[in-house]
């Protein structure tokens, strides 16, 4: 990656379930477009936003596009840090096993597949948010 003096730390906070409103889908659209700008990008999933990462999503019955595969492709866009809040999962009876296995290929280690999902607790999440320059909340 070329030297980029305008490089900032972007954090996209996803707070809403995937199909009840358009926020999750349009947040992803920003992430994908933003990938071309060579910024340092991370995603956070809190509150109902953790539902966006659920494994086995099936939208056949609601007539809406299933965009969940896009999260698994984020590694190809150099988006490799997805922070999931532990409390938000447990409050909804969920665990990491219920989420899609999202990975990226590490070119520095012979393209080994590594997990993009990182479980963090609420206190850590506040530190992650504070450590970013640009916070976009959806």
């Amino acid at each position, binding site marked *: 990656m070329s030297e980029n003096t*305008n490089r*900032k730390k*972007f954090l996209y906070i996803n707070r809403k379930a995937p199909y009840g409103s*358009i*926020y999750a889908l*349009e947040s992803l*659209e*920003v992430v994908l*477009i*933003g990938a*071309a*700008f060579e*910024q340092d990008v991370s995603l956070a999933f809190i509150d109902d936003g953790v539902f966006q990462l659920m494994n086995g999503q099936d939208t056949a019955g609601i007539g809406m596009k299933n965009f969940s595969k896009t999260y698994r492709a984020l590694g190809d866009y150099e988006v490799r840090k997805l922070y999931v809040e532990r409390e938000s999962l447990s409050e909804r009876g969920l665990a990491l096993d219920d989420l899609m296995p999202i990975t990226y290929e590490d070119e520095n280690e012979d393209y080994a597949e590594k997990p993009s999902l990182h479980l963090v607790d609420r206190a850590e999440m506040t530190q992650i948010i504070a450590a970013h*320059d*640009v*916070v*976009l*909340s*959806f």
Partner: protein
Amino acid sequence: MRFGIVVNEGPYTHQASDSAYQFAKAALQKGHEIFRVFFYHDGVNNATRLTVPPQDDRNLQQQWSALAEAHNLDLVVCIAAAQRRGILDADEAKRQGKDSDNLARGFRISGLGQLIDAGIQADRLVMFGD
């Protein structure tokens, strides 16, 4: 300070546009710079010139257009979000084969890159939404 502002909700249903407008006005009065106001999600509905609110109420679209004119603001409407919701400028209406356009003066339609760019260029990006 140089601010970027994002409006994520439509007018009247939600206070986001009102709050963003008051914030922008106050920031300008204090001598700050507004690098760009970006309208996303239902926020694109702030940009239709066809709204006709009751006369004893504020007209948010006109307020934004007037503020843009007075301070040479860059009001950008996301094209993907706008097309979903029927907000078209003359060029786009023609391209899509529609018989009319509705983008208010002072607004322009452009891509999501303008939002990322605002995040990069501004000292603070402030989002107003749900």
